[in-house]
């Protein structure tokens, strides 16, 4: 236990200190990993812990991204950067979740996908949202009088938020609420029969996951300085799914590992060969077939695609 905590502390310190000893390209890669890792972790709460496989998680990522973009241009502060995107994403998750949770399995997959495509359609065809090209020139916020435009300051800001949210998600999974979610994943019908209002719990999980995804989206807008309809596109949801499964569903940390694997594959491998998509796809297929626990699951010796 102590060893793991110490190891984690060292890792976090190394990540935080990254800009001190690495150039801007690796630092930006790390930042991208952290942002998508957060997105994937929120999906893992939904998929790995509650058992709800959503193909529309990009909906909330996109909502957060666009709200941040629109708000930061008007007033670049923390409210625009984080609070407003989180709030709007939460409301969106409440509404969409309320409807989506009425169906399950394959129908849930298709319905969540349909919702994300709806938002894609609106963003793509709407001039106010920048249509196909999206919005550019988004400024980074000013926090407590400090502008966090520079690489180092943005890094500190990102680490702080990521740390808080990762800790929050971790606490949730270990809480009584998290135990209920796991029970629902294992046997939803019995949870109902025993007295849990299962739908309410699922909706709560959906809203929490959607809110965190929205914050990840907002962070991405601040990272890039721009936003495009691709944030809503179903392949963005698919990427998150890939990341969760590669890292290991139901492990939270696995989602971050999966994000690292995906992004490193995409950027590093592609400098040696153009075939990163093929490698990723084959790796994923092999994982699903032979090592469904993902990286973390295999290390722990687990069987079964979902925790």
């Amino acid at each position, binding site marked *: 236990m102590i060893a793991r905590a110490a190891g984690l502390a060292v890792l976090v310190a190394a990540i935080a200190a990254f800009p001190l000893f690495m150039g801007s390209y690796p630092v930006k890669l790390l930042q991208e990993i952290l942002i998508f890792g957060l997105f994937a972790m929120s999906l893992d709460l939904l998929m790995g812990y509650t058992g709800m496989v959503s193909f529309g998680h990009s909906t909330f990522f996109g909502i957060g991204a666009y709200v941040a973009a629109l708000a930061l241009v008007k007033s670049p502060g923390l409210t625009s950067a984080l609070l407003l995107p989180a709030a709007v994403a939460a409301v969106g998750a409440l509404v969409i979740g309320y409807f989506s949770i009425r169906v399950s399995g394959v129908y849930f997959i298709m319905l969540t996908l349909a919702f994300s495509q709806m938002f894609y359609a609106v963003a793509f065809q709407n001039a106010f949202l920048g249509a196909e090209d999206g919005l550019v020139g988004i400024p980074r916020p000013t926090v407590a009088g400090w502008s966090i435009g520079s690489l180092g300051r943005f890094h500190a800001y990102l680490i702080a938020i990521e740390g808080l949210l990762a800790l*929050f998600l971790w*606490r*949730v999974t*270990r*809480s*009584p*609420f998290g*135990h*209920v979610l*796991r*029970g629902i994943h*294992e*046997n939803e*019908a*019995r*949870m*109902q*029969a*025993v*007295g*849990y*209002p*299962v739908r309410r719990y699922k909706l*709560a999980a959906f809203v*929490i996951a959607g809110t965190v995804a929205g914050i990840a989206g907002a962070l991405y807008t601040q990272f890039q300085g721009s936003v495009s309809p691709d944030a809503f596109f179903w392949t963005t949801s698919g990427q998150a799914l890939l990341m969760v499964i590669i890292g290991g569903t139901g492990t939270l940390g696995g989602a971050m590992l999966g994000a690292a694997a995906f992004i490193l594959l995409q950027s590093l491998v592609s400098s040696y060969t153009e075939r990163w998509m093929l490698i990723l796809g084959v790796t994923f297929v092999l994982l699903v077939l032979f090592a469904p626990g993902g990286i973390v699951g295999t290390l722990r010796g687990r069987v*079964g695609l979902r925790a």
Partner: protein
Amino acid sequence: MSEAPLLALDRLSRHFGALAAVNGVTLSIAPRERRAIIGPNGAGKTTLFNLITGHLAPSAGRVLLGGETVGGLAPHAIARRGLSRSFQRNNLFPRLTVLENLRLAAAADGKGSWSLLGGASRLGPSLARARETADAVGLAGRLEEAAGALSYGEQRQLEVGLALATRPRILLLDEPTAGMSPEETARMTRMLEGLPREVTLLIIEHDMDVVGSLADRVTVLHYGEVLTEGSFDHVKADPRVYEVYLGSA
């Protein structure tokens, strides 16, 4: 009977198209009573349970729990009102430990389950109740095993345990000894006999020895209707009951 019935069914019916799976069943169960429901396969016993627990909505008639009409309520709402049920086929949480299985059931009524940030300490009360229930159903030595790794007989014990852990007023058991060997059946019967009398029991059973040991009264179901009702000896002596079982063989 001087007390109001704990569970009452009033002309309860359920149709599937033209088929009446349950047809105008009326019965009352007093508090602390132990009632067995018997009948050949297809008599509608499990359907009756599903109607009582809210898994199926009635086509006609009422279900009254403690005088309150509960027919058509969602299963979790009915469970919250003190009615708990075990299943004919094991319906457990296979990858969770026996202790966690029972704890989840024990925690089902508490508001504590909405705690998002509380840690392990918040699980205390439900853990204590889970251990008590494990003792009651004879699984005290198996708490750290995954439910899926238990023997079939132990799984049936856990199956009853899950229903018991919610501290119900009335416990519905659907063929608790299904598929058990004679030794396992005897163990289960002793366990059920040892349950506190405050818990009213309604048991679907095929094994007449179990019925004889446990039941105060027996209701016989046939083609979804009540054929007869009375003490075990009274029902055993009724020639119609004998015919009904023979005829369906």
